[in-house]
């Protein structure tokens, strides 16, 4: 079985220019991002690495339009995110972006199927109910959950939950999937399984993956590694990606 390539597969290029984010707390100023400029090609499988507090997650939030206090420019495909209204940004997230979090962030009171259907509630570009159901079923089969879609997330292992989270991220056929420590809560085997699933999807659908991680074995499986230190790009190298 294969996932149909996203129609926006060629719009997943990301351009970031002079990105800055300053946190102020108790009169102390912290520069989480300090003039980050980078470009990610559409369909790339990229790792963002760096020590704790280096600005990895802040960069990811900026790419996802989740942080409104960012200065600079974030362009995904043809859209400049920093200029969009809240409503337009929300719509953009619903239809063009997918998110995968370290702690899965599945809604515990909804079934697996319902979790997959949540993004469809917010997207204006949405197919009929049956089409959405069959898309969700297909994705769940693709990530190895099979027909257990009526169960709640709590009944699944961490690895399985993260697979469901990946399926949810792919539900609206996004051009870019942003992952924040997707293997951080998983053991090596499960982590590798999840990573290889993402890699497969990246290759099959041409979806751009940006993965924040501090794990070396994850970095090894990406095409490119961007290392942040103190909110600046310390290193941007091609890793070659292992099979």
């Amino acid at each position, binding site marked *: 079985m294969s996932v149909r390539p996203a129609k926006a597969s060629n719009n997943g290029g990301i351009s970031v220019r002079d990105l800055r984010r300053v946190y102020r707390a108790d009169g102390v100023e912290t520069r989480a991002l300090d003039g980050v400029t980078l470009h990610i090609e559409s369909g790339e499988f990229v790792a963002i690495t760096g020590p704790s507090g280096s600005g990895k997650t802040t960069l990811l939030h900026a790419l996802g339009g*989740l942080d409104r206090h960012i200065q600079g420019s974030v362009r995904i495909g043809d859209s400049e995110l920093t200029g969009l209204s809240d409503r337009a940004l929300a719509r953009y*997230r619903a239809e063009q972006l997918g998110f995968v979090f370290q702690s899965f962030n599945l809604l515990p009171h909804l079934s697996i199927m*319902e979790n997959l259907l949540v993004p469809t*509630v917010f997207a204006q570009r949405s197919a009929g109910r049956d089409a959405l159901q069959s898309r969700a079923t297909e994705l769940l089969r693709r990530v190895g959950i099979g027909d257990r879609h009526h169960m709640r997330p709590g009944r699944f292992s961490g690895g399985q939950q993260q697979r469901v989270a990946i399926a949810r991220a792919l539900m*609206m056929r996004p051009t870019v999937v942003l992952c924040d420590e997707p293997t951080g809560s998983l053991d090596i085997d499960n982590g590798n399984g999840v990573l290889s699933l993402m890699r497969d999807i990246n290759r099959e659908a041409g979806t751009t993956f940006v993965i924040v991680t501090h794990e070396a074995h994850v970095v090894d499986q990406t095409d490119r590694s961007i290392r942040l230190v103190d909110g600046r790009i310390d290193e941007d190298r091609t890793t070659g990606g292992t099979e």
Partner: protein
Amino acid sequence: MNVASLVVRNIRRQPRNFFFSATGIVLGIAAFVFFIALGYGVKRNILDRIFVVNQVEFVPRTVSFGAFQRQGGLFGDSGTGIDDYMVDELRDFPGVEAVFPRQQLSFPALAMGGDSVFGESMVTELLADGIPAALVAESFGRGASGDLAFVDWRTDTACHEGRCPAGGRCVSGQCEAQTCVPADEVWACATRSDAAEVMRAAYNAAGRRRWRISIRELGDDSTVGEPFVVAVSGPSRAQIQRLLRARELPGRPLADGGPESGCTDEAAWCDPSTRSCALPVPVLASPTMLELYNGNFQSMMSGMAGSSRMPRLTEDALIGLGFESVLGRGYLGEATTVDDGDVAPREIKLRIVGFSDVAMPIGATIPLGYIQRWNVEYGGRGAGDEYHSLMIRSEDSQSLNRIIEHVQDEYGLELHPRYKQAQRAGSMITLVTGVFVLLSITILLLSALNIMHTFLMVVAQRRREIGVLRALGATRGVVYLLILGEALAIAVVGTVAALGLSIGAMALVDTLTQKQMPHVPFLPESLFAFPDWLLPAAFAVAALFCLLGAWLPALRAAQMDPAEAFRDGA
């Protein structure tokens, strides 16, 4: 999957929060519904039943010095000043739909009867007044019941569908009354001296028995042939004639029975004043009188030693009940001379034809024409010209205040005391209802605070989850709706539960009231009334306070920056 189903899923995951928040709303809305239904019910079921909303009664102004009261001011004549001229003027005043003058019986009269109800005949002073039949036309118009209509049979002589009351004949659209011989006329004589001889014989036959014996001069138009008859009221005609036949008397006994002496219509009686068959005078009684009788008088009399048990009465049991009255004779005196001429007491027959709130509270209300004729007969010329009060019906309730002001200022009349009481009672009920509704609003305000507290807690708990929803594409508006949707669900469930609770409470109060206070006058079947607007109003108030409580938490949730939500959640 849609926003509504997300709301429902959120409620189902934390039912305790939901029910805890809903409890206050249920109590507040239940109290709100209960007290409004009570206030409305008391006003509609009790007050408006006694006092018609767009109808008021005016009486001449009274000046009072302690126990001394005088009508019409300190000086001047003692008449009421309410006459046909005033009635006509008021009929033309803008906003006035109809004016109904009212005249009281102004001479002594006795009422007798009730054997079929009380087991023995009761005698009491007759208090009566007259109203135009039009005042009660809506409820007591000439209907299928025919002779139970509230009309003046003496003046209403038109045939109705070719039929006439009391066995009369319809001739050219007008009714001709059936002639008859009154039941108390026993002997016909050719001369007055013959009649006097028969009268003496009747006195002898009566012995110590109290018969009323009189000679009636019928003249040349006599329906019996002879110009004089002897009338004896007491035992039956046949019994008296048996006693008189034993003596050799001039003249002849009048036939008992048959068309010559009786009326073919069973409901009719032979009126001696007209010597024609007539239906009894229709009487309207007040439900107030019945309530007072059943509520106080009946229990009081039944509890007295030596007195027989008085039955409880109903309107149905009393409608159609006939009784007699002696006009011109009362406990305190007798009318003897009017306009320099003699007048004698005479008997009439009356019949209760219905109950109406416009009837005088204690007494009999009959068509105005009867009262005016009797007042002239026993009170003299002019006694039928002035009225004792005026009832004015306005076209709508908005015009009423203007009319009241006009009548008070221009004609020196004042509102009937019971309408003043109604105004006071209405204000009191509104005030008390207002206080209790305020109490309900206070409960609802506290509930709103409770909802705010609970929802702030819920928003804090779901902070990360709200961040996830925002990441998945939810706008601020959707987040806002999700929280307010839960509040609205509390309002819906709360309103339904509150309605159940309040209806249960109303049923309980009604049951207890009926059981504990069955004899309270005017106690309706239910103290509560449910106006059409109350259900939507209850929901609107519930929604208002739920949304008020959830507004701040919803705003906080909607304004939450997703990145901060993830950071704080982590």
